[in-house]
Structures are given as C-alpha cells and as structure tokens.
C-alpha cells in the first residue's frame, strides 16, 4: 500500500471516530449524553454498577492526578523551569542551606508521562461513551445487559487477546515509548554540561542542534560528515568481509577433501566462547605501541620501530576491520555452513558436467543462492555494524584523535562519538540529535534494501 493511501485511510478513521462520537451524542439519551461529562454515568444509570464505578473511579483518579501531579510539571513545559536552586545562609550551622529549584529533566520526563496518561484517559473516555451507548441500545431493544462477570468472562474467552496484551503493551509504553519520546525531545533542548539539572536548567532551542549538525557549526558538522563517511565505510566493509570470509571458511571446511571437519568447526567456534569484550580488550593490549606483539616483532628483528596498529589513522582503521573479522567470522561461518549444505547437489553436478570451473560455480550457483537467503541477515548485520560500539570503543576508544574533529577520533563511529558526547562531554542534546539521525539512516536503509531484495519480492519463488 502506498503511503498516500495509508494517510488517506488514517484520515478516514479519524473522521469516523469524530463522526461516531457525534452520532452517539445525537442519538443518545440523557444518560448517554451525560456520559460525555461523567464517565460511566450511562452504565451506572442502567444498572452496570461495577463497570460504571470503575469508569468513574478512573475519571476521579485522573482528575486528582492532573491537579496534584501533572499540572505542576505540564505548566512549566514551555520553559522547562524558571526557578533555579536557592541558597539561604544559616548562621547557626554556618552553611548555605539549599532548596532545590526546578528540575528541567524531571519536568520534561513527567510531562511526557502525563501526556501519555492523558491519551490513555481519552481512550477510556471513548470506551465509556461507547459502552453507555451500547447499554442504551440494548436496553431499548429490551435485551439483558452484560453483567460485570459476563465482561470478565469475555476477557478470558473472545477478548482473550486483550487480556494477554495488556501487560506487554504497558511495559512497552513505560520502557520503550516513554524513554524514546523523552530522548527525541532532548534533541530540541540545550541539555549539555552548562545546563545540567539539578544545579542548572535547560530549555527549548528548536532546531538549533540539527542546524549545528548539518552546517551551522563548521567544527561539529565537519566532524559529523567525516564520521558519517567512516561509519558507512566501516559498516559496508565490516559486513561484507565478515560474510565473505565466513562463507569461504565454511566452503573450505565443507570441502570433500578436508578431514576432521567437526574439529575445524569447533576450533573456530571456540572464539565465540570467550566473551567478546574480553578478546577485544586483550587485542587492544596486544596491539599497543609498547605491547607484546610489537615487542615480539622487535625481538625477532622484523621491525625497527613499533607498528602503530592503533595510533595511526589508516592502520587503526585497518586494524579494527581485521580484528572485527576475527571476532565475527565464526558467526557467519556457522550461519552460512548450514545454508551451504542445503544447496541442492544436483546443481553443482550438472554444472560440473557442463565443464564449469569452481570459481564459476561459486559465482553462479553459491553466491546467488546465499544472497537470496541471507539478505535479511545481511541487513541486520549492516545495521548492527553501524552501531557496533564494542569493537571500536574497546579497541581504539575511537582514536587516534585528530585536531580537526570535535571531540572525536579517526575510528569513531557515530555511536561511539555519541557515547563520548554524553559520558565525557555531557552534551546530551547534540548526542540525542545524532541518535535520531542514526535511527533514520539505519531504519531507512533497512527498509529500502529489504524491499528491493529478492527475499521480499520473490518470496514465493524460493524452493
């Protein structure tokens, strides 16, 4: 369905909700109409006491919540607070006693929470009107109204999906939607080291961070574009080298001439048994300028000076790619060897009868088959590599640093730069802006590649 059609359908739905509310009001009797003001009134009026009381309780709770909690935060959402921390001299204790001021972060967080709850109460409000109208219709038709126990039973039977989904949905809202909205909003503020709660307040700055990132601040945008470039190179090269070498390794091990197949496989899989961060930290020590590898090479007389594995821009980039191979190949080998064994043998047999060389067979049979099956895996791996924090941060910490980057180094990915900006520089707003951008890039690329791939378009052709 095209996006326009989706939007049209949305608009239609929206109109139908308003229409439905209007029709309910028009056709409803006094009790139903009063339900617009007092939630659950229609149910109470028609004897669905428990249901009506629950709706009423929700309304009362919400009004109490709105006045006692939501208002004090929502009223400050425009400025995110204007009263700073106060100090009063206490002669007896000989210190300044402090009274906390507005906490911009809490104001923002609780405002988002309040708005989510407000949306929730609107949904409930609509449900209450609907059930009032339904009760009215049933009563007018002379039918028996469902009691609370009927409703509860329905939740275990025909509406069981609602029962099952309630907790997960609430969890998703609390732990995914709420933090995401909060983080996205941070990108429109000046939340940084100079505006850090609780001592200081931050406020809205509109699109300032985005314009900084895309050109207004030459240092930041220059750093951003070059880090973005390296992130893309890294993601492409890391994904495909891992994939290709893993597949080649799997092919070698699957080869008829190789003995002790399972032993070889086990040896390569053993690297998975060591936690990734341990091997990466070890690697970073081994490859250090004064580390064991350089010492050994010098001892044997292969080199005069230390090889700057991690301290020279180009060699550091090569090093992270190679170490990433070492970490990633076992996984791609495991994934590909299963699929390789599934390729019908008769394809190869007929190809060899036709006199095809092994290379020809690889490119004409193996590769197309593999790509077809593994495109979704490749997309996941690519997006994972865009955000591959571990390999970069544990090996080089983004270094070597260079003078023309803003608080970043030559191997920094957007995600490690983001980390440094938050943890080391407390520049949360800029980091949040970068986070939004990374999300847009990885989601966009995944969608485009997936939709263009054979896996999605020719699904039915797969034997």
């Amino acid at each position, binding site marked *: 369905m095209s996006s326009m059609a989706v939007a049209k359908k949305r608009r239609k739905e929206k109109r139908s909700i308003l229409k439905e509310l209007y029709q309910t009001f028009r056709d409803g009797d006094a009790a139903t109409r009063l339900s617009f003001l007092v939630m659950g009134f229609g149910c109470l009026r028609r004897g669905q006491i428990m249901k009506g009381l629950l709706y009423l309780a929700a309304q009362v709770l919400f009004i109490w919540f709105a006045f006692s909690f939501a208002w004090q935060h929502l009223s400050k959402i425009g400025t995110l607070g204007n009263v700073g921390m106060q100090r009063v001299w206490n002669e007896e204790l000989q210190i300044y006693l402090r009274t906390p001021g507005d906490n911009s972060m809490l104001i923002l967080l609780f405002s988002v929470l309040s708005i989510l709850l407000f949306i929730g109460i609107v949904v409930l409000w609509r449900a209450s009107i609907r059930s009032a109208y339904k009760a009215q219709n049933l009563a007018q038709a002379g039918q028996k109204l469902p009691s609370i126990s009927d409703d509860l039973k329905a939740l275990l039977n025909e509406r069981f999906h609602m029962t099952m989904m309630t907790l997960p949905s609430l969890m998703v809202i609390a732990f995914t939607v709420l933090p995401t909205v909060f983080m996205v909003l941070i990108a429109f503020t000046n939340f940084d080291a100079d505006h850090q709660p609780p001592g*200081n307040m931050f406020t809205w700055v509109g699109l300032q961070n985005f314009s900084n990132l895309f050109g207004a601040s030459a240092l930041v945008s220059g750093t951003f574009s070059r880090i973005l470039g390296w992130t893309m190179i890294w993601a492409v090269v890391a994904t495909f080298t891992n994939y290709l070498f893993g597949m080649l390794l799997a092919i070698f091990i699957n080869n008829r001439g190789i003995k002790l197949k399972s032993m070889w496989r086990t040896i390569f899989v053993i690297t998975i048994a060591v936690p990734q961060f341990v091997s990466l930290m070890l690697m970073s020590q081994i490859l250090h300028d004064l580390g064991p590898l350089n010492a050994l090479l010098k001892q044997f007389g292969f080199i005069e000076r230390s090889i700057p594995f991690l301290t020279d821009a180009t060699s550091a980039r090569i090093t992270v790619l190679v170490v990433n191979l070492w970490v990633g190949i076992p996984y791609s080998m495991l994934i590909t060897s299963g699929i390789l064994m599934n390729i019908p043998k008769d394809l190869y047999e007929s190809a060899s009868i036709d006199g095809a060389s092994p290379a020809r067979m690889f490119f004409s049979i193996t590769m197309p088959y593999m790509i077809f099956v593994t495109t979704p895996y490749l997309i996941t791996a690519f997006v994972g590599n865009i955000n591959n924090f571990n390999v970069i941060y544990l090996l080089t910490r983004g270094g070597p640093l260079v003078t023309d980057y803003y608080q970043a180094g030559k191997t920094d990915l957007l995600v490690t730069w983001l980390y440094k900006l938050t943890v080391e520089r407390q520049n949360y707003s800029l980091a949040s802006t970068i986070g939004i951008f990374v999300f847009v890039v990885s989601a966009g690329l995944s969608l485009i590649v997936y939709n263009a791939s054979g896996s999605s378009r020719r699904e039915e052709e797969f034997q």
Partner: protein
Amino acid sequence: MKKLLSLALALCLMLSLAVPALAQETVKLKVWGSQEDQVMLGEMVEAFKAANPDKTYDVTFGVVGEPDAKTKYLEDPAAAADVFAFANDQVKDLVKASALYEVTRNKDAIVAANAPGAIESATVADVLYAYPMTADNGYFLYYDKSVINDEQVKTLDGILAAAQAANKKFFMNVSDGWYIASFFLAKGSLGIDANGVQTCDFNNEDGVAAGEAIKALTAHEAFLTGDDAILTGGMGDTIAAGVSGTWNATAIQEKLGDNYAATKLPTFTANGEQVQMSSFAGYKLMGVNSLTEYPVEAMALAEWLTNEANQLKRFEMRAMGPSNIKAAGNEAVLANAALAALALQANFATSQNDVLGTYWSPAEAFGTTMEAKNYDKDVKTLLDEMVAAITAK
C-alpha cells in the same frame, strides 16, 4: 496477674524511652576515592567515627578515581557521592554545574593550614569550594644516574643524546593533554573568557616553536611513548629517563636502586634558544556534593579526611605530597626525592585552574598526530585546528 500487667507496662515504658535513643538518626554518607586509596580511606573513616561518637555514621565507599570524579558526578549528580576527591582542574566545571558545596565551616582554619596555591586552586570567584588534599598532582623527570649525568639532564637534547648513546629511550606520553602542555605552557597560556569559554594561545609564534619542538622530540630515535607506561615500557632497562608523577616514585626507586634520581623537567630548544619546560601544577581536592542530605556531617568528614594527620597518613601509605603546610614541613616528606623534584618543578609550573573540559581531547589529538609522524599538515595548521577545537563553545 496485676504484677504481670505492671511489669509489661514498665517494660513498655522503658522501651519507649529507649527507642528514641536507639533510633537516633543514622548519617548516611558515600565517599568516592581511587581504587588504591580504598584501604586507607576505610581506616580514616573508622578513625572519624571513633572521634565523633555522638552520631551514628553509615559510610559507604565507591571506587571513582580523582581524574574521573567530574564525569561520574555529572552522569547523575543525585546519585553521586556526598564526599569525593577530584583533581583541581575540574573545579571550574563542577562549580559551573553547581556541584560543590561552599566551604564555610572552619573556613579560616582551613585556609590557614594549607599552602596558598592549594587554597587558590579550590577557590572560584573568591569562594572556597573544596578542601585541599594533596599538592602533588604534577609531573617531573625521573632518570637513571648511570646513563645520564647532572649536566646532560638539564636539556632535553642532552637527555635524548645520552639515552641514544646508551641505546636507551626517553619516555614521555606526548599524546596526553596533561603532559604535552609542558611545552606549550612554557610561553603560552590558557584562560577563561567572560562567557566561560576556554581561551588558548598555543598557535601563536611561541606555540608553533613549542609544536616544532614536540615534532622534533617525537621524531627522535630515542623517543618512546605510551599511556603512563613508564614502568611497563621498561624504566631502568630500556628507558633511561622519563616524565611521570609521584604515583610511580616507589616503584621506580625500587627498580633503579642507587641509580634512582628525580629532578625538574629539562629545557627544550625553541627557535634556537633553550626554554624551560613548564608543567601543570595540580592539587587533589576533596569536595562536598551540593545535593548532600547531610551537609554539616559531610563537611566534617571532608575536613577530617584532609586534615594534617590524614595528609601525613596519605604520604606514609601512598607517598602523596601534602598540601597542609605543617605536614609538608615534616622531615620524612622533605627527604622524599620525588617530592623534592616536584617542588623544584613547581617554580615553573602553571596552575591547572583555568583549564576546562574542552582542552584535553584536542591537545591529545595534536600529540597523537605527532607521535604517528603524520606530517600531512604543517605544525601551524594543526595548532590552528587544535586551538579552534579547544576554544569551541
């Protein structure tokens, strides 16, 4: 029955009298210190509890070293320690974030007891924000007397020549904003402008001369670098001299034995003349979290942890140089070679007060570029970029 009842009542009465005494408020405090200081801090806090029996203290410890205190604090100020140690270059940023409680109790006594430089390092806009703890957060030169003589050690060129002649190395971690500043600060300066932004003149003529000297040093055969790796790098074996601080003193002394020596940093050649290397004079301070629930008790603890006796204890257990005037005058402290070298270097040192967080990464980046012998851009261009990044808002 009546007896039983009266007994029960009496018991109740006694309990109700006893409970307020038992339920005396427990003062919960959290202290941050470096990993190596944990044992020592534990002993100091036990002594503090013993000295203040009128209150119940529940003191917990967290391992956050002085260099990381600011970063860790700003991650979540409300969850940070009530009392924490930090290096004085973090004072400005911490004060800007309203992180520190003003030192107002016993202020005059504290000011009088500590060296003026230490007090100055904890003061912003005439307000004292922290308790001076040590006066040794600086670096100087360690050298091997059997390789480098008293004359050679005065100039960087002399040291490099002597080290190379013995087929040994001179160690300095140039890819670190803290150490590399010793060249630039010889004639340059860092400051803070009215908007609270770092100012830096390291790209002027003197700065470029210093940059060229760094380039020459890093290109020298006898030059060796590494993150505080003077010992693992081979001090005494393959390293003849190196720049480091008091935290390595004991280990280097053990390694070098009779050949152990320490002195001020040498001079370097800039535009053909000898210029004395500067350094950062740093102090370690103890601060009180402005969000603490128990300001009075936290201040008492911070003051206790930095008093004369405990500064001496720090010297004895961890060889840290005291900022307390009396403790610094102690015979054992005066006899310490490393602290004597630090005192010599102090004459040429620059206060770390005016250094903001933006300085470190760009300075490290310049050092890294030099160490990597990446000469795609000339020194002047690199320094212009470095200064632009340091002074970025």
